[in-house]
């Protein structure tokens, strides 16, 4: 039975209620773009569960879609027989997603910065994904760990949405 919600009794409730376990999901998907929809759905559901409004959850799902797409296109270079691991965690003050692959080491610094003024004339179509991720998230970091690439996306719960 769900505990009764009451603002006045919240302090007492905290002292008697067992500490809540923060949701955490680990998903492994094949390195195929057909699974991007599932990645988006899971991320959005977890973000909403973590307390983000739907509009923010949509953006977080997009950032994770972009990170996963980067893995498929760059780390795995289109191979569809590999695996991408997603670790999605509500860590209380922050929402964290790690996108992990065992593909080629990718230097994120090699990703060209987006210059919208020159974008049309140069007919560039790449680099938007990382730019979008950085605009949506509070932190986007890349590291190499145990011969795997780890892209860590963090969104704090007290920051306003991207504009």
């Amino acid at each position: 039975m769900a505990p009764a919600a009451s603002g006045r009794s919240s302090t007492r409730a905290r002292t008697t209620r067992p500490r809540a376990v923060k949701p955490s999901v680990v998903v492994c998907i094949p390195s195929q773009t057909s699974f991007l929809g599932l990645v988006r759905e899971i991320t959005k559901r977890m973000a909403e569960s973590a307390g983000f409004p739907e509009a923010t959850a949509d953006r977080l799902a997009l950032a994770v879609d972009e990170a996963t797409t980067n893995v498929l296109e760059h780390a795995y270079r289109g191979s569809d027989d590999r695996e991408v691991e997603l670790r999605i965690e509500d860590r209380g003050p922050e929402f964290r997603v790690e996108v992990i692959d065992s593909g080629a080491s990718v230097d994120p610094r090699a990703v060209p910065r987006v210059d919208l003024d020159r974008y049309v004339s140069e007919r560039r179509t790449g680099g938007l994904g990382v730019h979008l991720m950085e605009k949506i998230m509070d932190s986007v970091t890349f590291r190499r760990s145990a011969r795997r690439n780890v892209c860590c996306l963090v969104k704090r719960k007290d920051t306003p949405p991207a504009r």
Partner: protein
Amino acid sequence: MAELTVETRDVEGVTLLYPKGFINAHTVRVFEGEIQKVLAQGQFRIVVNCAGLAYIASAGLGAIMGAIEEIRGNGGDLRLANLNDTVRNIFEILGFNHLYRIYPSEVEAITSFRPVGAGS
């Protein structure tokens, strides 16, 4: 159910595209293919009606970017209408709202192609 379908129709010399679903790295080829079909017909006045578009990832924005030079080089333009809040926000985050003309409705987008001074 298809994750993306794109219907087209012509109105007043403007080709309208109706993407329905979402555009990401998986579905972008469908979207690109429809744009290329329109360009192959020599039609360079295009409106993408986004009323049925749930969201668009960078792959979809790249598809538009990849075609815009040819479109504008032929004296045309690609304009957008009926963006939902999610799609509009993505455009604004990237500053694409400064690169493309966006209209609240399909009618306004079509009308925008009329010569200046032409009556309704």
